[in-house]
């Protein structure tokens, strides 16, 4: 029997998948022809899944340089009548915000779907942003799944709805959908492949003020039609209980928690539930029916009170006097859970949870002080550790020339290297957004007198690092910009980018060199260093900082995870380092206190290197004052 995979055309069969694979499968079933994205947790696996089947299913798949470009690629395909999607994490939607707001005026010819993956609790993000507000701003309807199965189904339907209404649709996923796992029932795969054709139509596609004024009302008309339809979409369901005094409105994933909570409390017959799959626009008829049937409402949704505010508006509009709860009882920060929803419903139904949450909270709090702190850390052998160490060493030296108390400033960015904020490196002073390190450095240069050394990764450089680099040249910002080039988008799963020489589907392409770009942008000091040659790297960074004017350092070393992987493939042995206990001064601890490498630990008062973790980078050997760290040779 042939094994079932994500690309199997086997309607009715069940497959165990990750939520993001289910989303990709939905697009495959809809016959998506163009998919573009920039990697970002929790969305990356969607495009990775599509890239894996791109050739087999004849889908054009690309990693774009950033989310704005990704969305524009998809928009162009849609304009030409081809089904297209762009996927990104919530903050990626901000990058794509500009084209999005006009794309909604354009609408869609080929089905056009934007997938936004929000990250409640900011598991791997700089903020917890609710992208539903952005969709609302652009009159973009939202489909929000309550399960992995529904994520697949909605994704497939979004393309159809987009074509039917000639309008852009958004599917809002969250971490606990994209990174959930579940069995799903597969649907049929559309094999339709269209040939794109571009129709010149300035009144549709050239957004001069006159066109904007003409097309905005048309966009609103389309949106009004969609508003009517959502009342009968299967994703919105109203279940009225006979004796209900409480109505629960549960949006997206929260519906699964609400169902369990009501069952757990045994109040099924006392609570009416409205499942919301389209938070924007809301199914107004269903909401009104529920509002009229109960005395109290609880809105359950993750992050901001988006549905809550709209429900309150509907109540006002309809003149219904009913108490509407939401974020007064359900947290606005973090992910929801069955427990949190249970607590809220218990309060409003005078019922008692079968589990004493307060007791369990207490147990958790009592246990917390016992637990060791286990933060994510830069890997053993990570080149960023060496780069950040070299940056710090060089800049501290230069800072002394600025004055006794002057500290160098290290604007940082989005990527693995932001883990350098933790001790002992403490080499990150700001992390705001993609490319923000160079931008912030530009501003600092004009207001403080201190060495300013900004750093970002290679993929981040291509994404958003080039405009602030040009800005530094143009506006004469005296800063040092370090690109930590490990030839991968490592944080999100080693996706390729323009500096790797490979495309999303593994085809070879032109490899862009960051140093060439920097020189072409007018930077007069550009040097490439190997961070594993600490002495030379530090000296070169020092020269860069002392250079009068913007300077660029490309610190290049392949991501250690990829390197180890390749070594294993080549059957090449890793030669770890070890501590020569005769030479080691047990009072010194420089290797531990300066580098924070997970492979170096203390055992029974001795410093030892875990040979199963050590990758043989040799940075610790280079900084050991007693030359006590040596290669382990047989």
């Amino acid at each position, binding site marked *: 029997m042939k094994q079932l995979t994500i690309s199997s055309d086997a309607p009715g069969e069940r497959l165990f998948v990750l939520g993001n694979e289910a989303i990709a499968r939905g697009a495959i079933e809809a016959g998506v022809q163009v998919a573009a994205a920039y990697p970002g947790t929790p969305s990356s696996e969607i495009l990775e899944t599509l890239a894996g089947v791109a050739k087999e299913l004849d889908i054009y798949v690309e990693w774009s340089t950033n989310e704005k470009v990704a969305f524009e690629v998809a928009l162009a395909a849609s304009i030409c009548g081809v089904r297209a999607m762009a996927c990104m994490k919530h903050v990626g939607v901000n990058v794509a915000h500009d084209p999005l707001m006009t794309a909604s005026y354009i609408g869609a010819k080929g089905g056009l779907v934007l997938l936004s993956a929000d990250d409640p609790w900011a598991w791997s993000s700089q903020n917890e942003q609710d992208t539903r507000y952005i969709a609302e701003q652009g009159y973009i309807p939202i489909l929000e799944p309550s399960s992995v199965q529904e994520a697949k189904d909605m994704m497939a339907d979004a393309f159809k709805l987009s074509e039917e209404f000639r309008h852009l649709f958004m599917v809002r996923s969250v971490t606990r959908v994209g990174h959930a*796992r579940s069995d799903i029932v597969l649907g049929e795969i559309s094999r339709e492949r269209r040939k794109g054709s571009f129709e010149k139509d300035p009144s549709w596609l050239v957004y001069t003020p006159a066109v904007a004024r003409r097309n905005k009302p048309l966009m609103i008309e389309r949106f009004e039609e969609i508003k009517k339809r959502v009342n009968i979409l299967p994703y919105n369901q109203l279940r009225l209980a006979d004796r209900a005094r409480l109505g629960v409105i549960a949006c997206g*994933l929260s519906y699964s928690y609400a169902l369990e909570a009501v069952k757990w409390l045994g109040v099924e017959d006392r609570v009416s539930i409205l499942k919301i799959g389209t938070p924007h626009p809301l199914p107004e008829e269903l909401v009104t029916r529920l509002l009229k049937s109960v005395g109290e409402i609880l809105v359950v949704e993750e992050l901001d009170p988006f549905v809550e505010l709209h429900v309150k508006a509907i109540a006002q509009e309809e003149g219904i006097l009913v108490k509407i709860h939401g974020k007064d009882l359900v947290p606005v920060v973090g992910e929801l859970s069955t427990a949190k929803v249970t607590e809220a419903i218990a309060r409003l139904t005078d019922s008692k949870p079968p589990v004493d949450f307060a007791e369990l909270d207490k147990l*958790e709090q009592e*246990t917390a002080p016992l*637990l*060791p702190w*286990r*933060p994510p850390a830069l890997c053993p052998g990570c080149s960023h550790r060496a780069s950040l160490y070299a940056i710090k060493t060089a800049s501290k030296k230069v800072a002394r020339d600025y004055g006794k108390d002057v500290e160098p400033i290290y604007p940082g960015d989005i990527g693995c290297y932001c883990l350098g904020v933790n001790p002992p490196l403490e080499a990150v002073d700001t992390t705001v957004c993609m490319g923000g390190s160079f931008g912030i450095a530009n501003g600092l240069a004009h207001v403080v007198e201190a060495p300013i050394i900004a750093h970002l990764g290679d993929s981040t450089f291509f994404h958003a690092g080039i405009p602030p680099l040009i800005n530094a040249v143009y506006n004469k910002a005296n800063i040092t910009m370090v690109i930590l080039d490990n030839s991968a988008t490592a944080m999100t799963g080693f996706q390729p980018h323009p500096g790797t020489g490979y495309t999303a589907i593994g085809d070879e392409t032109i490899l862009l060199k960051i140093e060439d770009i920097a020189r072409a942008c007018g930077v007069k000091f550009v040097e490439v260093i190997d961070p594993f040659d600490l002495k030379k790297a530090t000296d070169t960074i020092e020269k860069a900082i002392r250079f009068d004017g913007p300077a660029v350092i490309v610190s290049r070393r392949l991501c250690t995870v990829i390197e180890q992987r390749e070594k294993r493939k080549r059957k090449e042995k890793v030669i770890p380092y070890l501590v020569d206990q005769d030479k080691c001064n047990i009072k010194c601890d420089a290797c531990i206190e300066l580098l924070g490498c997970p492979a*170096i630990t203390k055992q029974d008062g001795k410093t030892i290197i875990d040979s199963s973790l050590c990758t043989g980078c040799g940075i610790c050997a280079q900084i050991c004052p007693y030359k006590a760290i040596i290669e382990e040779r047989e």
Partner: protein
Amino acid sequence: MIKEFNMLITGVGGQGVILMSELLGKSAVKEGLKIRGSEILGMAVRGGSVTSVIRIGDEVYGPLIPMGKCDTLIGMEPSEALRNIAFLSKSSLVILNTAIIVPFTVSLGQSQYPRLEVILDKLNSASSQIIKLDANHLAREAGSLLTANIVMLGALFGTELLPIKMATIKETIQARFPAKAVPVNFKAFDLGYQACRQALK
């Protein structure tokens, strides 16, 4: 009707926690079971805490286990098992790999690793039973330290609580690994299974 059965697998990035849930999930689907779950991990997986949620049952909807509702906790690392103590109840079973992984923050003097007895005491008072095994040792015995997760999977099956047949999980393991790695993994599975049976005697 299949009754709700909630499992948590906890450990440290790199221990193969996610792989265990994949193997369980695929096997459950083969048995026609409904399964829900999620991966809970921070920014960079490596070295950080990792939890995988697996829920089986006809009336299971959410991807997370409510506090106090975990039936079986599979702890790949003692302190990581302790971190999830609030999910346990007096009827929970804990299967614990007693091999500890000390985070680098302990070397840096920023935190402390509790004594194993303290962890066991805490877990004992919060659950009904702990099955302890040195999965790392058994994995080495099987032929590779990397199979410690499969040892633990074997131990889970040793409890005979799961509605999944042994043949099914073995079939899934066989399909997941290259042919030459299958015997080592089978051996690891069997060692874990036996260790659990022994502990339950």
